[in-house]
């Protein structure tokens, strides 16, 4: 049933394999720069955050941010490019595979990019910075990273489906995606918000993702509600992505 999904995903992985080194250099450079600039550079001014040095506070968030950004970017640009520039989506559609198989393949590709690039950044941060975490915490952390990457991959698919102009994609990223990531406790604790705002911020799936992932990686704590919140959001986004893509293709 998923012949088409597998074929397209394998195609995408072949392309990733061919460009893996240049991709990783580009992907690692951004969070590493932030880590060095804020984590190391500002550490002396900021001191401890939630009882931890600032560099350690932001490290898990940077790994998570890399993964979800990679998932979103791969999905949105890949889908837009294949739909509007290369017209390969059209060439897939005149074969016996279904529209759902195409969109699932693209979600899977975004997700895979997220996981691979998140892990790469994690390894680099682990290797060249003092940030350390017990390896047994990795499983709890992945329980956030996997649905988180899936959520952003689906969000990317929705953007890449409904937006026909590349500049619109850039604007959405600047106005919606990055603020959602940055305001979810990546660089500062939620306690910094006015008390009246905190419940709203906590309701965001990105907050559940970044907060939950940090706790899971640093302390090994696995809170069920944030995991459920991220997973359910990913599921809803998946259904929405498939529905929206199918509708767009039927136009």
């Amino acid at each position, binding site marked *: 049933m998923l012949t088409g999904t597998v074929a397209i995903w394998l195609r995408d992985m072949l392309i990733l394999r061919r460009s893996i080194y240049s991709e990783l250099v580009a992907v690692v450079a951004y969070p590493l720069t932030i880590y060095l600039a804020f984590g190391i550079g500002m550490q002396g001014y900021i001191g401890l955050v939630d009882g931890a040095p600032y560099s350690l506070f932001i490290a898990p968030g940077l790994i998570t941010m890399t993964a979800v950004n990679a998932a979103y970017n791969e999905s949105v640009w890949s889908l837009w490019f294949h739909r509007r520039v290369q017209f*390969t989506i059209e060439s897939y559609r*005149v074969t016996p*595979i279904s529209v759902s198989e195409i969109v699932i393949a693209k979600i899977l590709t975004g997700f895979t990019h997220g996981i691979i690039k998140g892990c790469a950044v994690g390894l680099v941060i682990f290797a060249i910075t003092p940030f350390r975490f017990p390896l047994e915490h990795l499983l709890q952390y992945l329980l956030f990273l996997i649905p988180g990457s899936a959520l952003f991959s689906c969000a990317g698919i929705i953007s890449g489906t409904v937006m026909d102009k590349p500049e619109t994609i850039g604007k959405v990223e600047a106005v919606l995606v990055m603020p959602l990531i940055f305001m979810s406790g990546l660089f500062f604790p939620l306690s910094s918000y006015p008390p009246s705002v905190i419940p709203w911020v906590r309701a965001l799936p990105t907050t559940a993702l970044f907060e939950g992932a940090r706790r899971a990686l640093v302390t090994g704590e696995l809170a069920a509600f944030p995991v459920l919140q991220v997973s359910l959001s990913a599921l809803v986004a998946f259904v929405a992505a498939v529905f929206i893509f199918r509708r767009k293709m039927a136009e």
Partner: protein
Amino acid sequence: MTLPSIVTRSLTKSYGALTALDSFDLSVEQGTIFGLLGPNGAGKTTLIRILTTLMNQSSGSVTIEGLDTLSSGRAIRCMIGVVSQENSLDRYLTARENLELHARLHGMEKRQYKGRIDDLLELMGLAGRQTDFPDTFSGGMQRRLVIARALVHQPRVLFLDEPTTGLDPQSRRAVWEYVRSLAGSMTIFLTTHYLEEAEQLCDRIAIMDHGRLIASGSTQELKDRLSGATVYEIEFAEGEGERYAVLLGAMSCSRNISRLGNKVTVTLEHWECVSEIVTALHGAAIRRISLKERTLEDVFISLTGEKVRE
């Protein structure tokens, strides 16, 4: 008598108030090359998108090889090959990988598609470039690769949507040769803006405009249908053109007359008028007299008008 491969019945497609296809009836026989002509916005693309199951009609029915497009889309896509207007090649895959991906999307296994792809690359003259990326190919080579891709799974019906647009004359003729070589083994449905292409390749031609079928038949049938009128071009000796143009224009069987220097072009009601003309021109200093053949373009323009479409 061969069975119809493509049949549309009262096919209608509307986009809000705009009717792109209006009760369109068509029948294409198996194993033939069928050409669809029409000015921009005539509804050709909409029709081909419905025939290839990319789009659903508003009403009416379509069958491909006896299968309904609405209920048997997947089965139809198993047996059609599509060469779209855009090359739609994957520029990040080599020529061979493009064909392999297409084969896998058709559920073919490696042992099934390996030899087939070798043969197609050879046939299309691309075997030596199979590990190169399509971006490095000329327009003609890219087009041949798209055609090869559409043939990997051995379709029974091949749709070619403006297959030679943008190609130089040599590449265009090369594509024609490939298409001709396929004739008989599958039904070929071709849309084109090049009337010469339709004339060269197609067994039957349909002309559509404003979403409606306005004429169909062989090239000769369409030319014959244009009218019974025949057009002669007569070249007179120096200074004689004007006098004879007036004389011919006054004749009852002359429908239309034009003159350029000593050359007079006269359209006659029917070929029987020729003897009257010969009589009228008795003694005239004629350098040359020739029958002007009606072209498919004349038919096309007469049916769709000369006005440029948006």
